[in-house]
């Protein structure tokens, strides 16, 4: 990259998940684990110990039959831009060894396993529980080690790992573009594994900085207000923490949108008079 190329418009890769389409099948979790060499244990039921970069949560509206409704919420790393979207993500700002950094060229929060020494400060800082600790060295049964992806480095015991938006796919797409003499990659050249795996098409991935990309059209991120969604049906998790996540959720159902943050009694109704936007 030369100095001139450095000045070009930066990418802000983000994801939009349509919660009304998600059936909770878990394909995204499986695809993610096989794409990123995520280790698993014989007994995966202990969710405080198991590692799931992409995890599907189950939400309910808390009502009894026949009004019961459920919603499945896939949760990757949110790749927060931090307060004011300056790159001071909760995890990045606490890491004592620069093992996790904000990529200003892509908007992706990196995790360098060889640099991490496992203090787990970032895990405590992350409000989305998106980070996981390797309590043991990964072990793949039998011949399975041969199926690992060579494009993702395997982790060792004692380091933290998390979703990288399949960064290796961006690297590969960029390699191809540069080889062919192009300066930019196409939207379809860089898609995450979960996006491709979702049978319902609930996950959309792309550049939030590019008005031509689907994710931009879906949420209409407001560039003047740290990319808050202008689409009233779209929301981000814990929006008011000002972590500025790059993962947006869309739902027609009001109770689902309400579940995206914590509200005191009556607060949601008050905020909602203002077309789903807060008063500020």
């Amino acid at each position, binding site marked *: 990259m030369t100095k001139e190329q*450095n000045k070009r418009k930066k990418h802000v890769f983000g994801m939009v998940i349509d919660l009304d389409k998600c059936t909770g099948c878990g394909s995204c979790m499986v695809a993610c684990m096989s794409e990123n060499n995520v280790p698993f244990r014989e007994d995966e039921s202990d969710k405080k110990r198991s590692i799931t970069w992409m995890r599907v949560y189950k939400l309910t509206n808390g009502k009894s039959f026949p009004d019961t409704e459920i919603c499945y919420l896939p949760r990757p790393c949110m790749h927060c831009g931090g307060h004011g979207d300056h790159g001071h993500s909760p995890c990045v700002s606490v890491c004592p060894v620069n093992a996790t950094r904000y*990529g200003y060229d892509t908007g992706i929060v990196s995790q360098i396993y060889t640099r991490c020494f496992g203090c787990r400060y970032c895990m405590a800082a992350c409000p989305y529980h998106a980070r996981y600790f390797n309590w043991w060295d990964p072990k793949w049964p039998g011949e399975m080690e041969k199926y690992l992806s060579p494009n993702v480095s395997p982790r060792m015991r004692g380091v933290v790992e998390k979703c990288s938006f399949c*960064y*290796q796919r961006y690297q590969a797409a960029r390699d191809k573009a540069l*080889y062919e003499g192009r300066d930019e990659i196409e939207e379809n050249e860089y898609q995450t594994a979960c996006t491709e795996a979702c049978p319902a098409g609930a996950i959309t991935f792309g550049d939030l900085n590019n008005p031509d990309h689907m994710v931009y059209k879906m949420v209409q991120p407001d560039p003047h207000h740290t990319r808050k969604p202008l689409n009233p049906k779209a929301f981000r998790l814990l929006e008011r923490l000002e972590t500025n996540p790059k993962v947006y959720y869309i739902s027609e159902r009001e109770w689902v949108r309400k579940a995206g943050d914590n509200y005191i009694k009556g607060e949601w109704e008050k905020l909602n008079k203002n077309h789903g936007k807060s008063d500020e």
Partner: protein
Amino acid sequence: MNELEEKTEDVSMDAVEDGQKEEQKAEGDSGLGMGVLFFLVAFVVCFLSCWLLFPKVLYSEKSQPFNFNHRLHVEETGDCESCHSFRDDGSFAGIPKISKCLECHDEQQGDTKDEAFFIKNYASKDKEVPWFIYSKQPDCVFFSHAAHVKAAGMDCKTCHGDIGDSTKCKPYEENRITGYSRDIWGKSIWGIKKHSWDRMKMDDCAQCHEKETGEKGSCFQCHK
């Protein structure tokens, strides 16, 4: 009266034995000299033995399966990319596979012993040559040849040195602790770098990036 007091009394009382006293003093001086000499010799011996031995202890020398003459091949093919090529997806193939060699070497081309060895043991059996890769980076490193060679227009020499002009394969020195080649850490124990291709550490990447692009770049630019 202990021994020491006895001695001092003896000396002070016997003024006659002045000469003997001087002799004793001279003996003490030479003892000190010997001590310093011994220390210096021991220091030099230890320093040199460690200086020469340490790399031998840290690195195990391995030789390549057979000798490869780069100069001869460059003269024949004209450039590096004939053998070290890009794949269609933009990734770099690195050391060519045997199928690439067989494009020319389906039968003996010259009359060198090394080629005869290659034909007999690898080419005729269609077996991959187990080369040691001098510039092999750790698993966590992503290096884009396309970005450097195609986009930035760098030549191979900047990082790989004069390998294209070599007639022999140098021994592969493997770090016994890390398992990586000495070419990554660099030959000089002092860490002195004369050429851009002397070392291949992260600092060396960052140094050039800072100079050429104005910033070291983000972590994920080169890590995976």
